[in-house]
């Protein structure tokens, strides 16, 4: 409780310092706006109802991209962990493919999928895929050999070993990958909108420099909910 109070006080102190620096240091508002004006702008956007549709678009892209990327990543991770042949065959290429800057594929995806939600969802899914796949693969291969022997001794089938031993055992590692994917999904969605979005937080950031701070605000809200 005291730690929480302290961290809340820290936030207040930082905001106050920022405000004081802007006012006393005569920093131009165009470069660094004071928090009071950020909140005022943000409130204006919310009150006028302009911000919420953008938020909804970004949240949709983020959720769909995250779900798609995580589902494919989890499935690929399980497949590669269970089939060593496939793993030796495909894993090097999957790792190598991660070097491709996925955001740079944005313009290509606009040609393939048109403007709108789809290219951003695909970019977000591509970004979320890797942490899920890699952590699933690692988690499943790290299952304690003693427990695997126990399941052999108990005559468990391969599917039973996967569902009742490997996946529950790997869950902490898989969830760690999921947390990374959630953070990356937000980056993917917002930056995807920079490239080809007409709606969403990224697009509104590009459209209006004064709203620049709302992404900061949104990031804070997101982290809080997660």
């Amino acid at each position, binding site marked *: 409780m005291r730690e929480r109070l302290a961290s809340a006080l820290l936030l207040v102190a930082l905001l106050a310092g920022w405000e004081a620096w802007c006012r006393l240091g005569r920093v131009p508002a165009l470069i660094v706006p004071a928090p009071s004006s950020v909140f005022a702008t943000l409130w204006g956007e919310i009150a006028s109802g302009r911000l919420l549709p953008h938020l909804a678009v970004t949240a949709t892209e983020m959720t769909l991209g995250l779900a798609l990327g995580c589902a494919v990543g989890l499935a690929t991770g399980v497949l590669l962990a269970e089939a060593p042949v496939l793993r030796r065959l495909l894993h090097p290429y999957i790792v190598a493919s991660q070097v491709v800057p996925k955001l740079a594929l944005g313009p290509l995806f606009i040609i393939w999928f048109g403007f709108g939600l789809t290219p951003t969802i695909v970019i977000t899914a591509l970004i979320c895929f890797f942490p899920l796949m890699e952590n699933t693969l690692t988690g499943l291969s790290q299952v304690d050999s003693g427990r695997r*022997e126990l*399941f*052999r001794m108990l005559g468990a089938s391969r599917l039973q070993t996967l569902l009742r031993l490997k996946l529950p055992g790997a869950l902490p590692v898989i969830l760690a990958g999921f947390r990374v994917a959630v953070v990356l999904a937000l980056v993917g969605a917002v930056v995807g909108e920079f490239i080809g979005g007409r709606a969403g937080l990224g697009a509104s950031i590009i459209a209006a420099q004064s709203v620049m701070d709302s992404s900061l605000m949104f990031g804070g809200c997101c982290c809080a909910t997660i």
Partner: protein
Amino acid sequence: MSTEAPPDAFVAIEAVDFGYGAEAIVDAVDWAIPRGAFHCLVGRSGSGKTTLLKLAAGLLAPQRGLVRIDGVPLDGPGPRIGFVFQQPTLLDWLSVLDNVLLPLSLKRSLQEADRETARALLERVGLSAFAARHPAQLSGGQQSRVAVARALITQPALLLLDEPFAALDALTREELQDDLAALWALQATTVLFVTHDIGEAVYLADRVAIMAGGKLHHDLAIDLPRPRSRAMRYGPAFNALCRELRQAMDAAP
């Protein structure tokens, strides 16, 4: 060592070899366990005793020779064999009761009668108050008790134990030995118990063999009366048996 297994042998290990490359881990071992007997193998670490136990469990296949259970050649792990590992190897995400029920729940859907059986087993190992807890909330000795209960839930005809109490303190180990002896007397299970502790072997077994360098060396019948009591551990007969085994162990190559 006798090569001809007696006709009443429940477990017959016949001229079994196992090794990695040129190195022999288990070297032409013959051993027979009558139905319902409690046998111990004593050896230093690296003597091949765990490997022999895994051969008897069907977890490893012998490169030469044969393991028979009740006359039938063994071709893999089966529901008639219970195994207690060196580590308790409980599943952290299941309750103690569900850990005990695991062997059954992998075979079929559970009945209320199964839960009753599991509770009764937990009661017998003194853990009835812990059924809803998770393994991380138990002490090492309690975890070992759960592992023994889990191995017994299928009422196996053969129970194999691989130094199950090695990681416990001496007092807890003695308690668990008494519990195991009591469970064995109740269930009429054939037991092969592997340990590096001579006292443990003499206290528990009908018959003890020394294992060294992949071979069985010394075969000693333990004729102490049953049920065995703690006072026996300090008696002259007990100590004479321990001394004999110790000397045999030192004499083994």
